[in-house]
């Protein structure tokens, strides 16, 4: 058979027509696309068995329980631990991405001396030299831990000082410390037994305290009800997330919280709505109304609202003596549903606002990054993440999320004493040391956090009070040994003491306080110790308009 020119043209035309309708080119295009979507360098999750471990979050002092999904020795997911008696299965949004924090590009991986690369041995030699030349001041941001005990003991042994940078939640309890003589670290809010909460701009539903405590309480007793069991009154100059969910939002002028507290106090006393519990403010009701932008009648109505359903508890976002004095007047200090004293006496810590003369300052990684000591001393700063420009002399990489064994003392706002342990679940991604390990390298007589945790568990066991709470509640008196107690805590259980309401608290207020300058509104992540956020927080801050800022413009 001959293949003629005509055949060639017919074949060519047929091929061209066929090419248009054939799926082959499209298939090739599709396959090429798929192939390029699966480049070998695109990361793939490891196909390894998964196991779940329990721990606690140590990124802020609230110590929420964690259920950590582990694969090949790494944390691959974090969720709330539903059996955790403090956080009740809840976490803050940042906590859900915390397992990625250790690989943050800003992770500190090497020792730096005044911006240049250095080594642990050089840092240790410099610290030993400083120690031999003068006193050392140790600054801690999360007191009460075993590591804090080690640091405090070291400072005292050196004739140095131990200072604490306190969070806003602890600072809010400072006025009561002054009036009762009980350290703020031993005080808390009995939220579970209160029926009216007057919040002065406190982000109760947006990062205040243990996320699972108030949010769950509000969800169970207040959400979506016109006459809730728990009345949340939010006094705020802007429409916050908490205001949007409050039973009532009272809009006042910015910075007039103290004036409103004084005005309410005047009404309560002058109209005999409360038994007189102390002095009344000098500010007149008319002046309070003028400052807050409310009417005199509105303040009077609000005062009656406070006593309609008691106990009533006023909560300030930071140190505000007028709001604290309002609680005294309402009889909400040392009573059920108010400010309560926890069962165990804690220490009153000196603040790091004023730092005594020292040869060197050692800053623990729990201290917020933006804390800058007002001193000429040589500064040794521990941090797991680099938060930006800093004037410290030594920048020392500390363990990151779940990279070290630590204990979890009672949360700052808690009404019941608790104790937990956060075991180290993942290996550090670089050579890191905690401040406690560092001082032990310089002073061989220093204890270690492991030993202190062990001792604390033995003490808890010896006292035989409280119970171990996980799925079940087991009284400590029923445990066979201190070792069993420690094992339970290592596996996510929490030791809880008896409720605090039985502990007496005497509060004396001689004159109505005058407020100093009030701190500006804090960010909702202000209690978050890390200077960086998990990458997945971009879902909140960049990939949605959900969180532009805490205090949005007024509606």
């Amino acid at each position: 058979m001959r293949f003629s020119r005509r055949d060639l043209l017919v074949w060519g035309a047929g091929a061209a027509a066929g090419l248009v309708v054939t799926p082959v080119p499209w298939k090739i295009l599709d396959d090429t696309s798929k192939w390029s979507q699966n480049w070998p360098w695109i990361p793939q999750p490891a196909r390894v068995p998964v196991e779940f471990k329990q721990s606690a979050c140590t990124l802020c002092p609230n110590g929420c329980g964690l259920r950590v999904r582990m694969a090949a020795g790494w944390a691959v997911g974090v969720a709330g631990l539903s059996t955790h008696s403090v956080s009740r299965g809840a976490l803050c949004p940042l906590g859900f991405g915390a397992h990625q924090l250790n690989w943050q590009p800003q992770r500190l991986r090497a020792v730096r001396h005044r911006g240049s690369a250095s080594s642990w041995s050089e840092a240790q030699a410099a610290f030993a030299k400083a120690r031999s030349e003068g006193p050392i001041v140790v600054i801690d941001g999360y007191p009460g831990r075993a590591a804090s005990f080690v640091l405090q003991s070291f400072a005292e042994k050196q004739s140095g000082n131990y200072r604490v940078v306190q969070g806003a939640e602890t600072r809010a309890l400072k006025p009561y410390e002054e009036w009762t003589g009980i350290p703020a670290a031993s005080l808390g809010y009995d939220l579970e037994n209160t029926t009216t909460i007057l919040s002065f701009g406190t982000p109760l539903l947006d990062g205040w305290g243990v996320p699972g405590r108030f949010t769950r309480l509000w969800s169970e007793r207040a959400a979506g009800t016109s006459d809730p069991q728990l009345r949340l009154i939010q006094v705020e100059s802007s429409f916050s997330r908490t205001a949007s969910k409050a039973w009532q939002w009272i809009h006042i002028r910015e910075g007039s919280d103290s004036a409103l507290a004084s005005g309410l106090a005047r009404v309560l006393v002058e109209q005999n709505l409360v038994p007189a519990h102390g002095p009344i403010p000098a500010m007149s009701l008319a002046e309070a109304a003028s400052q807050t932008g409310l009417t005199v009648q509105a303040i009077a109505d609000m005062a009656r609202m406070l006593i309609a359903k008691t106990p009533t508890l006023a909560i300030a976002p930071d140190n505000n003596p007028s709001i604290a004095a309002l609680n005294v007047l309402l009889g909400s200090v040392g009573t059920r549903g108010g400010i309560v004293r926890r069962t165990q006496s804690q220490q009153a810590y000196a603040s790091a606002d004023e730092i005594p003369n020292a040869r060197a300052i050692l800053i623990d990684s729990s201290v917020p990054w933006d804390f800058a000591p007002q001193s000429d001393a040589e500064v040794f700063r521990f941090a797991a993440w680099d938060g930006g420009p800093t004037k410290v002399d030594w920048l020392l990489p500390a363990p990151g999320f779940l990279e070290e064994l630590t204990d979890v003392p009672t949360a700052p706002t808690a009404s019941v004493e608790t104790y937990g342990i956060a075991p180290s679940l993942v290996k550090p991604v670089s050579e890191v040391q905690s401040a406690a390990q560092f001082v032990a390298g310089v002073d061989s007589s220093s204890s270690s956090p492991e030993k202190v945790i062990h001792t604390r568990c033995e003490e808890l066991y010896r006292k035989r009070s409280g119970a171990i709470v996980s799925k079940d509640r087991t009284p400590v008196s029923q445990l066979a040994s201190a070792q069993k107690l420690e094992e339970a805590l290592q596996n996510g259980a929490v030791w809880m003491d008896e409720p605090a309401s039985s502990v007496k608290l005497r509060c004396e207020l001689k004159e109505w306080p005058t407020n100093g300058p009030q701190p500006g509104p804090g960010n909702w992540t202000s209690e978050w110790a890390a200077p960086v956020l998990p990458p997945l927080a971009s879902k909140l801050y960049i990939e949605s308009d959900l969180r532009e800022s805490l205090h949005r413009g007024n509606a």
Partner: protein
Amino acid sequence: MSAARYGMVIDLDRCTGCGSCMVACASENNVPALPQATARTGLTPILVREVSNGKQGADHREAFFPIMCMHCEHDTPCVKVCPQQAVEVDKATGIVMQMPQRCLGCRYCMTACPYHARYYNWWDPSWPKGMEKSLNPGVAVRMRGVVEKCNLCHARLHSAMEKAAAAGKREIDQADYVPACVEACPTGAIHFGNLADANDPVTKESRSPESFRLLAKLGTEPKLYYKSKEAWVRAMAEPNTAPTSEAQHG
């Protein structure tokens, strides 16, 4: 295994707009946090939107709507338009499944979805060095050039089925299958269950007078219900008639 109809009821009165569900979802499904992603181009299978009643001063109120795939049951719009048969309603679970291997990225489904609950994946997934160790082994990474959406954490359903099979059971224990957003919600606002089971609390809740579905008039029978005691929030179900304004656009 008997056919299920998995669905949700979200109590909007309990949603504080914290965003935990969004972060937990992204973590569970290996969604990368890409610096170039924005509110319009990011991959956010559950996106919390803020709405207000449009009033001023003390009468102003806001609510938060977590928006995700509604898993429409009837005339599912995305299924109808997909030229690749990359979307289908799983008869065993009622979950609207998206198969990225079939998807050619035409985005017809995004246009068809009345809820704007679908996202096109513009970029190859990437993480800072070492962070790939933190990926969930049970879920693949998100493929570039395809459309993505909520699949009710299907990998968790698989795990629950494997667990049931290992125990010699045909039915899963419902407690073993809980999507990440449900688990994460700190106020317990998101309730998940089997709408085919008349005794399931979620089924009962979905029939409450306070429950509603977005754009119900389209007749697509979404399996995601919302619930609120506030009339103005319920009015958001049909935006053309709602006297409110939407504060956010994803």
